[in-house]
């Protein structure tokens, strides 16, 4: 494996990872895949993952774009109930239920990525149905064509309401959406001019929301000639979006963000590393699935540049623990806790979404993470595999506290735990008074409060 942050060979980086020996393909690597491409894996998923190649694992997840009918039916039933209250505050609980039960983890992970990318907050939109509809759009296109997603989102009522663009008249074009589509959604800063924004805004005139649906009011559309990126024409809104998508900078921008999301928070944003994937992305006509297949089966993805190089988002932190041991809990309380940790689903802080990385952690959120886990682990509603944690451990052949700690560490941590820390952990758990169940839960609480668990 190559080392040194600045000397990564792009050819090596994006070549498929092919373990030379069976022992080169370990449970640690499979766990890494599921932490990044989903929300952690339970012991059965890890065992099953070991039987597949890295490329098979990635391909399977990318082609898995349809939720199982059982999960879909339960999710639809919960959605009906949540939407019937017309209160968007109940949506996070619905989504976390789906994250815990999904049969298509990468699809959900990408939906979460696009939720942060095309950030739209229910605080402003207020309408639960519109927020839910947007979430469905993101899921529908999550692993599909990026261009189609941008077109869909640009006429999404929730997005237009959020960007104050529910009514856009030719006498006074609203520049908000035009600015964000260039700066935040497709191109990134420095790849457009203020004039481009003004001209693009003219394309979107006449775009309105009527009765919660997109509506084109031709009387308010500016049919005159516009000049965008040196192209001249009487462009419509859709044509304006296409012009933005055609800019070469877009592929680099999206690849960079995806690398940050899936591979490492910092240190890999080098043009020479981004360029090969950006070319592939452009050449494929902006197909996200193909891009991710390369990225998620690559040498770089399984290298030390990636393993443990991300800080768990609050959702990864909490859902990851529950998923690892088939846990269920009070989801309303869980989401209250996620809010305190800085990631309330459907309520991103602003149009830039969650910044992520080091911003997830500070002295206050670190303490809040430990508190959230302690409060969840003492709740009767928190169950593992439908029962107690001790029962769950027993069914997996784990019968002593020492064995349990070793097992938890192996499944949960992305980076190895030093021997002194491990011994201290075992000692603290063994000294705990109370039942085996309580000591196990206490041990689990201590592990997820470790700095090592905060890394994914």
């Amino acid at each position, binding site marked *: 494996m190559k080392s040194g942050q600045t000397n990564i060979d792009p050819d090596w980086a994006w070549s498929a990872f092919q373990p030379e020996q069976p022992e080169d393909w370990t449970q640690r690597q499979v766990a890494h895949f599921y932490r990044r491409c989903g929300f952690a894996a339970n012991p059965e998923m890890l065992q099953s993952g070991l039987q597949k190649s890295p490329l098979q694992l990635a391909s399977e997840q990318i082609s898995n774009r349809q939720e199982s009918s059982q999960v879909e039916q339960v999710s639809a039933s919960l959605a009906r109930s949540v939407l019937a209250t017309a209160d968007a505050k109940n949506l996070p*609980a619905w989504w976390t239920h789906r994250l815990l039960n999904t049969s298509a983890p990468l699809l959900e992970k990408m939906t979460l990525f696009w939720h942060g990318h095309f950030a739209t907050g229910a605080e402003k939109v207020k309408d639960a149905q519109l927020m839910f509809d947007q979430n469905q759009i993101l899921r529908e296109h999550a692993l599909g064509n990026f261009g189609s997603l941008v077109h869909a989102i640009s006429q999404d009522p929730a997005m237009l309401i959020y960007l104050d663009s529910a009514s856009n008249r030719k006498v006074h074009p609203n520049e908000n959406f035009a600015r964000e589509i260039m700066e935040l959604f497709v191109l990134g800063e420095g790849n457009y001019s203020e004039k481009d924004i003004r001209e693009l805004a003219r394309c979107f005139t006449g775009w309105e929301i009527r009765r919660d649906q997109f509506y084109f009011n031709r009387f308010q559309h500016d049919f005159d000639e516009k000049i965008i990126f040196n192209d001249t024409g009487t462009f419509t809104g859709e044509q304006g979006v296409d012009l933005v998508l055609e800019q070469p900078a877009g592929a680099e921008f999206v690849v960079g963000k995806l690398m940050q999301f899936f591979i490492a928070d910092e240190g890999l944003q080098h043009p020479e590393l981004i360029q090969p994937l950006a070319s592939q992305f452009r050449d494929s006509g902006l197909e996200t699935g193909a891009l991710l297949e390369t990225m998620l089966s690559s040498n770089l993805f399984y290298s030390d540049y990636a393993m443990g190089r991300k800080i768990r988002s609050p959702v990864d932190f909490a859902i990851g623990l529950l998923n690892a041991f088939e846990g269920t809990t009070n989801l309303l309380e869980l989401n209250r806790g996620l809010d305190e940790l800085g990631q309330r689903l459907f309520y991103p802080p602003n149009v830039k979404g969650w910044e992520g990385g080091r911003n997830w952690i500070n002295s206050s959120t670190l303490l809040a993470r430990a508190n959230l886990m302690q409060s969840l682990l003492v709740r009767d509603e928190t169950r593992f595999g439908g029962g107690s944690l001790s029962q769950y451990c027993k069914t997996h052949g784990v019968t002593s506290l020492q064995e349990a700690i070793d097992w938890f560490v192996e499944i949960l941590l992305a980076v190895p735990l030093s021997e002194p820390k491990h011994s201290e952990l075992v000692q603290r758990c063994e000294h705990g008074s109370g039942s085996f169940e309580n000591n196990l839960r206490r041990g689990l609480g201590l592990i997820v409060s470790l700095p090592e668990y905060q890394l994914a």
Partner: protein
Amino acid sequence: MQTFAQTTFYSGMLAALFSLGIYAEAPAGDAARYFPATTIIYAEIDQPVDLIKGAQQNPQISQLLDELKTIPAIKKSMEGKDFQKFQFALKVVEAKLGQKWPEALAALTHHGISIGVDPVSNGVGLLMQAEDAEALNNITNSLVELIEGDAKSKGQEPHFEQVEYREAKVFKASDFGFATWNNWILIGNKSDVGRSMLDALIDDSNTGLSSTENFRNASNAKTGDAIAWLFIDIDAARAANPDENIYSNKADDPGGEFLLGGLYSAFHETPYLTGELQTVDSGLKLKLSVPFDRSSISEERNHYFGPEGTGSASSPIYVPGHLLTISFYRDLSQMFQRAGDLFDEKANDDLAKADVGLSTLFSGRNFADEVLSGISPQMQFVIARQTFAEDKPIPSIKLPGFALVTELKDPKVSRKEFRRNFINAIGFFNIVGAMNGQPQLEIDFESIEGGELVTTNMVPEVDQKPDTEARINYNFSPSIAFSDNLMIISTTSELAEAVASSKESLSVEPAEDTEDIRNTAMLLSVKELVRLVLDNREHLISQNMLKEGHTQEEAETEIDSLVKIVRLFKRSKAVLSTSETTLDFTLEVEINADKSPRE
């Protein structure tokens, strides 16, 4: 989850108590004299053996227990190690005693069971009179032998120190003790209290709780057919907690004053409270009473009890789909006018602001003096399950209709005012609703016998197809109805119409005891409550899944079990009334004898 489990447990106990209807016998002796005179809370069950037998033999209880066992949380705790250990210990005890635990318990409490709390010593005493001394000694000796044998096998010190006190055998443990004498057993947490109770028992003393004036007065009013009887010395409670905030006469919450102001006033002065649990025709009746002189009610609380306590609630309205009716006497005008005496400064400021705003709405007429005084103090709050037309959007969450019913003293004047303000309110709602993308309300006017109906309908959105999952808004069709003197303000036009046609006036139905005056009466129909739960079954299951982390199957089992348990009951009635000498709260629960909970 704990709350739900508790609810089901209490439901089980209610059903068990109901079964006593078959076995109730006359109460036996009075153990109160053996408790210290300073006892503040005292309760007794004269015939516990009947309670145990009734619970064992009542088929509804076994059905109820079966249902409870299917509830995930209860099932889980029954499968837990602690419960298994408890079951094992129980079997060991039964084997040692040579009888099942209910039989042993019945023998132990054959002649009654009493419990008392003494705040002076922080002592709690439990006194039971067994079938005979032999049965008592057999049981206690066997239990002590088992416990000590277990301690010995674990290498622990004996739990009990056995001593003699006069003619009694005393077993002392670290934080409690018990003593046996003849066929009596006394369990307590304080040795001083235990000693004084044993002295009273052996000497057959009569200087204990039963010698106090409050207790004597309370027990004089005791009826002979109660299953259980409760006494609380409120004088002593006040003396023990002389917190001025609790007993000061200024409230900070008009809502609280409206609901409980009269009770607050009564508890401020009353010397004691008694409670009786009885079996009635097809259920249970709990009656709580405090001594009360209605002729001496303070003037500021006339709004609650009426002048000299004569304010009486009308008989509860019953309409199709009836779920709950609360009928009460409350003179709102009086309450507003007496705000200075009743409420603290902040509450008064808030009421003054509300008075100004509402007076503006009513064309400058003073809201408290002129508008509210035009409304009769007899009011009713009615809740009924609503039906939904198939050609209109049907809400996904189905709420019942709510209505406030009262009488107008001068309908010719007041009707116009209320009608106009209702229309204004709907207009305001439509403007605010339109700004927030909410559906609009359309007003309609209809003449009915003796009056008129002003109804609204939620206008379906353009292109909206018949929908069974419409927004929650479609539960509402706010309406106001006038029928002779009656005014009905309702969340649905269906309920407004039903109430308007159900009766001509809010007549006052005489209470069972003609001397009694009913201040508040509540009537709950369980059948419609069950239907309402079933209407919203899917949502309750979803909420259960999100809140309890249950799977769909577990959530369905829990909700369906809840429905089956509720179905055991038919209706419930609660009445707050005054007699010449008491203020009484009576709660009756009628068991559903017609239906098996499995149906």
